[in-house]
C-alpha cells in the first residue's frame, strides 16, 4: 500500500490522543462523583454543626448568668490583670505583617525573579511577577502556577511545580523575601 508507514503512524497518534482524552473523560467523571460525595458529607456536617451550635447557645446562656454572679466576687482582682491583658491585645491587633505591597527578589533559573506581594489583614491577597529576565517564557508561566497554591495555602511552604522547579522555587523564595520586609518588627 502506498504511504503505508504514514497511515500506521497516523493511526498510532490518533490512538495515543484518544487514550489521553479517554483518560481525561474518566478523570472528569471520577472527580464529579468525588465532588458529590464531598458535598453530601459537608451538608451532613453542617447539620451536625447547627445542632451543636444550638445546644452551645443554650449552655452559653446558662454560663453567662453564672458568670455574672461570679463577677461581683472577682471584680477587685481584675484591676492588676487588666494592664498585661491590654498590651497583649494591642500586639495581636497589629498582626504579623504590615498591610501594603512589598517587592521581593530571589534567584530563578537564569537570573533574578522579582515579585510584588500584596498583603491586607495578615492575608496574602495578590502576588505578581514583576520581572524575570532570565526565565524562559514557557517555564515561567508554568512556574507561576505556584502563586495560586501560595495564596490558597496562605503559606510559602508549598510544593514546587514539577518541570519548572527553578522558576517556581525562585517565585517562592521571592515571596519569602517580600514577606520578610513586610514583617512587623
Amino acid at each position, binding site marked *: 500500500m*502506498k*504511504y*503505508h*508507514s*504514514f*497511515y500506521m*503512524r*497516523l493511526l*498510532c*497518534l490518533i490512538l495515543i490522543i484518544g487514550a*489521553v482524552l479517554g*483518560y*481525561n473523560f474518566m*478523570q*472528569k467523571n471520577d*472527580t464529579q462523583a468525588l465532588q458529590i460525595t464531598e458535598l453530601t458529607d459537608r451538608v451532613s456536617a453542617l447539620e451536625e454543626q447547627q445542632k451543636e451550635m444550638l445546644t452551645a447557645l443554650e449552655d452559653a446562656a446558662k454560663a453567662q448568668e453564672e458568670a455574672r454572679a461570679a463577677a461581683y466576687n472577682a471584680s477587685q482582682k481584675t484591676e492588676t490583670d487588666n494592664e498585661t491583658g491590654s498590651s497583649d491585645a494591642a500586639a495581636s491587633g497589629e498582626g504579623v505583617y504590615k498591610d501594603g505591597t512589598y517587592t521581593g527578589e530571589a534567584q530563578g*533559573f*537564569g*537570573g533574578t525573579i522579582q515579585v510584588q506581594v500584596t498583603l491586607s489583614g495578615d492575608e496574602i491577597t495578590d502576588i505578581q511577577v514583576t520581572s524575570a529576565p*532570565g526565565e*524562559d*517564557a*514557557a*517555564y515561567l*508561566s*508554568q512556574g507561576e502556577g505556584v502563586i495560586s497554591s501560595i495564596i490558597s495555602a496562605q503559606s510559602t511552604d508549598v510544593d514546587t511545580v*514539577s*518541570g*519548572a522547579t527553578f522558576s517556581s522555587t525562585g517565585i517562592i523564595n521571592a515571596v519569602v523575601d517580600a514577606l520578610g520586609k513586610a514583617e512587623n518588627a
Partner: protein
Amino acid sequence: MKKRQRKVRLIRAVIQLIFFIVAPALFSTAFAGVKSIFQAIAAGQPVTWNSFLDVTGALLLLTVLFGRHFCGYACAFGSLGDAMYELTVFIRQKVFHKKGRHGYPEKVVRYLQKVKYLLLAFLLLSILAGWYSNLQGMSPWDVFSMLTAQKLPNASYRIGIILLVLILIGMCTQERFFCQFLCPMGAVFAMMPILPSALFKRDRSKCPAKCGLCRKRCPAHLDIDGDTLLSGECICCHACEATCPRKNIQIGQEVEQKEAEAVSSIRGEGK
C-alpha cells in the same frame, strides 16, 4: 557541485546559530510538555494544557506538516552536535590529513537508532512508576540548559555533567550522534505521521546504477525514497539534496513521485 553543498551547509549553519542564541531551550521545553502529560497521569490528575504543551504541540504540528526541520535547523542540541562533528572533521583534515566524513557503519547506525525509543520508554515509564524524581541531576539536558543560561551546575548535577561530556565525545564520532541514537524528543518526532508531501523523494529513474551518494552522505544513512519505515529518522538536513550530482532529490512533488513510480514499475523495480 561542492559549491552547492557548501552553500546549503552555510545557510543552515547561520539559521542554526540564530536559533541557538535566541531559543536554546526549545527542545527541552518540548520534552517537558511530553513529560507533563505523564506526570499528570502518574499523579492521577486530569491532563491539562500548559505552556510546555504550547511548544510541544507547535513543534509536533510543524513536524507533521513540514518534516523534522526543527531538528535539522532549530534545535540547539542538534546544532551543538553538528558543531562538534564538523570541528572533528576539520581537525582530522588539517592535523591528520584524513579526508571525508567519518562515522559508524550503516548496520551499527541502524541498531543504535533504536536506542532512543528504549530511552523514551524508560523515561516515560519511570515517570508513571513515580521514581523519575530519583533521576534528578542526571539529565544532561538540564546541565546544557544551565550552561546556555550562563549558570554553572552545582555538584548535585555530577552525573548529568558526566553524561553530557560523554555525549559531546559521541557527537565527535558520528554525525548527529545524539539526535539519532539518544534523543527522546527525537523518538517522539520520528513517530509522528509526517505528511508524505514533506518527505524527501528521489527520482530513481534518473539515478545511475550503484551511485548511492545520497545514502552515504545522509547522517542517518537513509535510503531516500519518500514514505518508508525509516523516513521518520530524516532530520531534514538537506545534505542528500545538495549532494546528488543529478539533482534527483527533492522534498514532496507529488507529480514527479508518481512519474518516478510509473517508470520504476515499468523497469520492474517497484516494491
